[in-house]
């Protein structure tokens, strides 16, 4: 039986209907020349697959991941209205080594001292209560009231807001070189994660449109129900105190 190469290759790819697959299988069994052709094709197919497969197993270069995060932020409709997030004034290191909660707390306190009406009496922006890290002070105020995309008191910037599968709310925030994820629980903001923001594809001036760390976006993705809140839904959530909880 004559079987053309297109059919033979479609057979190899499992792209024929059941009856046709069966017919070709029988023909191959009965014809050594056909078996030989099939084996040769299989051999070269396998060589091609094995040549390229390792590429998909390599670590993806950082700059390609950054291209997804970064280009996306750059084309966000509000990116032009976002204020510089941290000006290179020289009186603070532009990229401190944020290693501990103490560092972010200190930085937030600087924000309080610069722009606050409350001075030193303002509660700490981060504090432990039992085994949970809670937002307080300017951070809690920003999480309570600030729309995503705006820069508020203490340079705290809320990047995005979303509802969780459990019916609660979480918000991703950024302050200088540190980003974090806070989720609403019992009328308070529990800070579930903080992570350093990837070093600057934006140059020396950090803007609010800086890409969020991968680990944080993964955490968002693990919790999010549907899409991020749009401006309207977010405004409603702010109005309702993030759960309808009158706190």
């Amino acid at each position: 039986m004559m079987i053309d190469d297109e059919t033979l290759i479609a057979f190899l790819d499992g792209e024929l209907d059941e009856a046709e697959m069966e017919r070709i299988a029988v023909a191959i069994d009965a014809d050594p020349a056909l078996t030989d052709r099939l084996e040769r094709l299989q051999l070269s197919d396998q060589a091609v697959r094995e040549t390229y497969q390792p590429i998909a197993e390599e670590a993806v270069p950082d700059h390609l991941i950054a291209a997804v995060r970064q280009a996306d932020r750059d084309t966000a409709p509000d990116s032009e209205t976002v204020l510089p997030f941290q000006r290179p004034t020289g009186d603070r290191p532009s990229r401190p080594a944020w290693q501990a909660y103490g560092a972010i707390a200190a930085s937030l306190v600087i924000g309080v001292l610069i722009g606050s009406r409350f001075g030193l009496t303002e509660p700490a922006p981060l504090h432990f209560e039992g085994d949970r890290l809670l937002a307080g002070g300017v951070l809690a105020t920003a999480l309570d009231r600030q729309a995503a995309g705006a820069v508020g008191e203490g340079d705290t910037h809320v990047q995005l807001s979303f509802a969780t599968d459990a019916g609660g709310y979480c918000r991703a925030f950024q302050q200088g070189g540190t980003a974090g994820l806070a989720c609403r629980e019992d009328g308070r903001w529990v800070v579930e994660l903080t992570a350093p923001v990837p070093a600057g594809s934006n140059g020396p001036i950090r803007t609010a449109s800086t890409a969020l760390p991968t680990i944080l976006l993964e955490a968002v993705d693990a919790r999010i129900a549907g899409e991020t809140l749009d401006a309207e839904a977010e405004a409603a959530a702010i109005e309702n105190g993030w759960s309808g909880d009158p706190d």
Partner: protein
Amino acid sequence: MGKRSARLENEMIEYLPRMRRFARSLSRDAADADDLVQLTVERALTRLDQWQDGTRLDSWMYRIMKNAWIDETRRRQRQGRHLAPPEAGESVGAEDPDFDKRIRAMSVERAMATLPDDQRIAVGLVLVEGLSYKEASNVLDVPMGTLTSRLARGRKALEAQLNPDSVEAGHDD
């Protein structure tokens, strides 16, 4: 209409290993291949409004990459530049300690580079990326028959080059 979200970004990042693999099946040069991936990501993000939510993001990205590759090959041809320098030392799996594998990978790359673009793209999508014929013909926006014909011609040419003792080989090295 597609829109930006953390989930979409993550999905895109999830596809990057495959996009890199496909790019490498198109371009022998590793740096060119990653440039192609970057271009694809940038175009995808600026044209997100053209992506229909609910359709496959990976298929759409493959299509963008295919178009970007064809644009790039035409541009270079106009400039009289070669795409894959034949003396290029880098090879897929060059870090592999297995010498035979390395030699074979180099043969595969060389053979792929001899295919016309349309055949190489069809082989890349189906054989390397594992797309079904239907998915691949969607990506390329060509009838199924066109895809299977390109695929068959490409696969036969590869077979002839990779099994040089083949009785069907049109030409030997």
